[in-house]
């Protein structure tokens, strides 16, 4: 089977989305720069968007693509508020690593 006759099924997209999601999750767990952790959260959201679109294609229903818009809006709102929090923290502490945030510990 050559590449020209090879058909990419929806399962390939789901496996790719799983891999991107896993990379993002490991990044959130290992990195300590808060901004990079935010970027890893964006990776996870994008993986979920990809699987939504793959399911829309698999089930032949446009609703999966509509849901992607709501995910986009939530991601934009999350980035706006999260970066404002980072700016506020950085103004007080001069660092933006997760270890500096342990003052929130009860």
């Amino acid at each position, binding site marked *: 089977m050559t*590449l020209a006759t090879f058909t990419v099924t929806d399962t390939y997209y789901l496996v790719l989305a799983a891999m991107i999601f896993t990379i993002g999750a490991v990044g959130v767990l*290992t990195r300590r720069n808060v901004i990079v952790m935010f970027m890893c959260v964006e990776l996870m959201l994008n993986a979920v968007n990809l699987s939504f679109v793959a399911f829309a294609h698999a089930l032949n229903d446009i609703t999966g693509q509509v849901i992607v818009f709501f995910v986009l809006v939530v991601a*934009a709102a999350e980035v706006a508020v999260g970066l404002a929090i980072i700016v506020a923290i950085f103004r007080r502490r001069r660092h*933006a690593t997760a270890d500096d945030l342990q003052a929130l510990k009860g």
Partner: protein
Amino acid sequence: MTAFLFFVAAGAALAGALGVVLARNPVHSALFLVLTLVSVAVLFLLRDAELVAAVQVIVYASAIVVLFLFVIMLLGVDREESMEDRIPYQRPAAIGLGVILLAELVFLACHEWATGQKTTSGVPLQGDGFGNNVERVARVLFTDFLWAFEITAVLLVIAVVGAVVLARRSGQRADGRIDDAETDEVTT
């Protein structure tokens, strides 16, 4: 041709995702994030999601990444972070949990799902009578999801107001002058 495009875009997306996690410099992470987002937009095009692909490039790859880069430059955190962990076993534990997560997700993706239920919209992805991709998305968005769409506007207003309140210096007044009691550079 489609398979070739898929594997190129998938490889670029994976490389970009790995670059986001592995790059020491946050600016490099943001640029790798652009690579992943554009590759995912190409994958959206391959799955007949033209409008979503355009929005992905416009909103994600431009607006959100520019916001990230703006904050990185504003705070000057583009120096490399130290890589030693406070918890010594954190990194292997995270990688182990990631492998387990990947195994579970791939197991789920490679099996059949019980998704026989059709949604309420009844607008198919392809077929006659509903126009092109934009018209189909708009038809569902402004009929079945109209309430969620309006709630989205409220969410965005809340996010904007919250960001303004959080990022304002404490003690700053509405006319822009700063009260002399507390400028918070002196703390820490």
